[in-house]
């Protein structure tokens, strides 16, 4: 490796570790080790190739892709600088405070709950052994396949007057006492719990993968040095899993902010329902845009905060030898407590609603099940696969470009490309139409001048527009895990490969992609499942006579035919479940294989 002379003013930014003396904090040795480690990594950082200022092909490609992704969002948000309309003043003086308050409570509540459930269960299944662990390990991901609106309808039904819960309670209690159950669920608190139950797998998945990739050696060292299991968890494992943890929670919070179906049904006014109120109920697009822009600003702060908290820390374990964590055998009541703790989210986030769906399906299956459902499933599956694949490829491009030349511009671009995830689907859908219709008009103009004939919209209202919109919307879902996956690959692997003569593309495919295979697949599958569940965007942009499982389920539910909607709903859940199980097996293999050097 060629040694580049470092000490230029600029270089200081990339070799930031000052040679401060070892701090002797109680247990001496880790401090000294840490110092040596920091020193070494400082040296390595010095020899890391500094970012080139010239525009490489990677940079240009990334900037183009990010610009494309941001185009629809820009198309909707450019109107923000217009005059403050009468409608805006009306909203600000009457309901805006309510929207803000409810959204804040929802964000905090769901964030805290998903952290608690996600990290707790991830830690238990990754490092402990207890009855049913293997089963629960997979089971804990399953709620991911439940769309929130279906969850909301189903629980409202389970707790309804004619539902099983009230039926059982009425045996001992007066019906007037139990009648409020459903009303109680359909509230801000109820929405918080429902959302947390479906969203915690984001935290669980990413955090567990991170726990599994932590070398057992580090945890063992911590315990040998006298830390208890809990202390090791809080002092070692959790800080090391921080990027994963924050990536997971960020996804959850963005999902909460644009949540529409469930909160609308429950009658909880949030920022998103406010956007729709301004846009549709009041027919005032500028006010809707203004609200969207507020939401975007908030999310951008969230994204920047997430990056900032990673700071200059590095989270690869710096070890060339990986030993998987040896599961800690829990005994007696502790073991069963762990089983119980992990079973509860699976039970309420998946089994209970699925059983309810199944019982409906049994009632209506004879007249609802026909060949059409095969088409629905195929449509959903095909769209989700293509969108998932594209999202991962683009995420890989963006993250790898930033790694090749970490210029401020690229950093900003990569952060901005996550924005789509926080924008309500319907807003993106309308934004996507702007560039597509523009292209169509140009094409139509050319065709007309050549042949004199007229063509309609060629791309708008096709699957291509739909897939593009999915990528805009769900890029963050792929970007976050890919990014935190790369964080755990030592830069020197890339450098070695490139110093041995492999160009970046070859290095990416020969070194990084194989190492990241699990991460890439999980990223792709997260997008897959999200697309499968996606609703408002699909409704607006889809071609004629094109239904997916989600649109079918939603329309039946909208027409208040909940039982009939159970069949497509159940199919979404089942189709979503298969890849989830596959994904789990892939991550599970990390247990025995190495990690990222």
């Amino acid at each position, binding site marked *: 490796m060629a040694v580049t002379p470092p000490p230029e003013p600029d270089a200081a930014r990339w070799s930031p570790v000052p040679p401060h003396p070892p701090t002797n904090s109680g247990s001496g040795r880790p401090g000294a080790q840490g110092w040596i480690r920091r020193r070494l990594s400082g040296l390595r950082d010095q020899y890391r190739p500094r970012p080139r200022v010239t525009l490489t092909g990677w940079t240009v490609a990334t900037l183009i892709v990010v610009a494309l992704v941001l185009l629809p969002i820009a198309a909707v948000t450019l109107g923000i600088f217009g005059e403050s309309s009468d409608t805006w003043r009306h909203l600000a003086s009457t309901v805006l405070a309510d929207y803000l308050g409810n959204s804040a409570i929802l964000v905090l509540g769901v964030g805290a709950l998903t952290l608690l459930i996600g990290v707790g269960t991830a830690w238990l299944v990754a490092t402990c052994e207890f009855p049913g662990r293997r089963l629960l390990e997979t089971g804990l991901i399953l709620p991911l396949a439940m769309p929130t609106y279906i969850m909301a309808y189903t629980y409202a039904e389970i707790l309804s007057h004619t539902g099983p819960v009230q039926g059982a309670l009425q045996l001992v209690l007066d019906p007037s006492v139990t009648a409020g159950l459903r009303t109680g669920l359909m509230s801000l608190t109820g929405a918080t719990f429902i959302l947390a139950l479906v969203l915690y797998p984001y935290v669980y998945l990413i955090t567990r993968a991170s726990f599994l990739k932590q070398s057992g050696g580090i945890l063992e060292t911590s315990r040998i040095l006298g830390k208890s299991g809990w202390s090791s968890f809080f002092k070692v494992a959790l800080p090391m899993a921080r990027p994963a943890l924050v990536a997971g929670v960020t996804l959850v919070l963005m999902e909460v902010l644009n949540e529409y179906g469930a909160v609308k049904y429950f009658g909880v006014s949030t920022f998103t329902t406010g956007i729709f109120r301004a846009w549709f109920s009041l027919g005032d697009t500028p006010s809707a845009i203004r609200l969207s822009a507020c939401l975007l600003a908030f999310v951008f702060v969230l994204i920047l905060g997430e990056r900032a908290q990673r700071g200059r820390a590095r989270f690869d374990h710096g070890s060339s030898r990986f030993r998987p964590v040896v599961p800690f055998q829990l005994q007696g009541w502790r073991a069963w407590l762990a089983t119980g703790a992990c079973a509860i989210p699976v039970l309420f986030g998946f089994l209970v609603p699925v059983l309810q769906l199944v019982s409906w399906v049994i009632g209506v299956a004879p007249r609802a099940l026909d060949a059409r459902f095969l088409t629905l499933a195929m449509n959903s599956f095909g769209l989700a696969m293509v969108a998932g694949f594209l999202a991962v490829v683009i995420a890989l491009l963006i993250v790898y470009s930033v790694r090749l030349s970490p210029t401020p511009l690229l950093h900003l671009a990569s952060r901005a490309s996550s924005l789509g995830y926080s924008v309500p689907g319907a807003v993106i859908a309308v934004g996507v139409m702007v560039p597509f219709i523009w292209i169509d008009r140009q094409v139509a103009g050319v065709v007309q001048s050549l042949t004199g004939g007229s063509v309609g919209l060629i791309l708008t209202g096709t699957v291509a527009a739909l897939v593009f919109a999915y990528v805009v919307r769900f890029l963050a879902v792929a970007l976050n895990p890919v990014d935190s996956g790369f964080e755990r690959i030592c830069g020197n692997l890339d450098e070695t490969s490139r110093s041995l003569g492999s160009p970046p593309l070859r290095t990416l495919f020969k070194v990084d992609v194989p190492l990241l295979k699990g991460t890439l697949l999980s990223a792709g599958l997260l997008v897959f499942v999200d697309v499968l569940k996606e609703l408002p965007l699909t409704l607006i942009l889809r071609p004629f*006579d094109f239904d997916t499982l989600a649109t079918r389920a939603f329309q039946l539910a909208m027409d208040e035919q909940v039982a009939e909607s159970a069949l497509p709903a159940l199919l979404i859940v089942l189709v979503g479940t298969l890849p989830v199980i596959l994904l789990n097996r892939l991550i599970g293999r990390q247990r025995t294989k190495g990690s990222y050097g």
Partner: protein
Amino acid sequence: MPDNLHDSPVSSSGSKVGHRPSRNDAGPFRRGPFILAMALLFAVVPLLAGCEDESEPVVNVYSHRHYDTDEALFQQFTAETGIRVRVVSASADELIARLEREGAASPADVLITVDAGRLHRARTRGLLQPVESEVLQEVVPEHLRDPENFWFGLTQRIRVLAYARERVDPEEIQSYEALADGEWEGRVVARTSENIYNISHMASMVAALGQEAAEEWARGVVANFARPPQGNDTDQIRDVASGIGDVALVNSYYVGRLLNADDAASRELGERVGIIFPNQEDRGAHVNVSGIGVTAHAPNRDHAVRLIEFLVSEEAQRAFAEANFEYPVREGIDWAPTLRSWGTFRADDLELNRLGELNNEAVRIFDRAGWR
């Protein structure tokens, strides 16, 4: 922990190779799934996008109605005329947004909504065109279509009061205005003001009472709520049946659906509520329509008109009334037995475009009154 001391590029990557001997056999990178996905990308997308036969006569429908009845009717239309009906269904608001963006290039021929206010909005935004059709002028009563024939009602929907038979004497509550009376405190249930049926109903209240009285009324109703607004129309009926509230503001066909449901539990719930057509002594019960209009740039205008004429034909109107318990717009159609059992009633003959004109005023009143 000597690991750290080996933390140099060479040993790190060297040990990596040692870790994964299988990689050398399986090739550096398993391409299978990716090739599969790429194949899908290039095969499926054009397949889905390009499977249109240009020569076939079609009519393109943007619809907010997505009932099985409508689908069966479209199939029947195709069987009778050879014109294929292609549908995109979403909410009227979203479809209007799509029409606006598509402009003159829009493939849509007709827009179907479940509310007159939205048709009016589409009209004022220049998305519809007038239709001269003797059939339509004759069949659709004047107050159920646009005065300049930009849109036509297909079915009538009546906003009624559903009351708990056990606890309420229908004589006690004979008007919408009564919902705001003090004696109904803690007894009224309704859905949120985001719902278009509520917005249009409020618009009709503004038309009848004026803005101030309508706002006063909204405050009174909010004060009487048994619980915060939530759920859909069916949920309101069930909350009345199960004792959470005593009276609900709903569209009548939701009660009809419960009464004719497949499962006994739903039917039993339906039996527990009665319906009242309010304001029979003055303006009559609030009427809205599910309606249809030809889009401004319809590429298949003639087919579109034929479709509309078909949808107001006797058989189509009977199908609407029987399957979904809505009231037909065409006169002389036999009502479904459930509708007959509710009897005839006086309907408000307010010009329906007013619902659209007063839409914003209505939403603002809800916000000011705290009806979320």
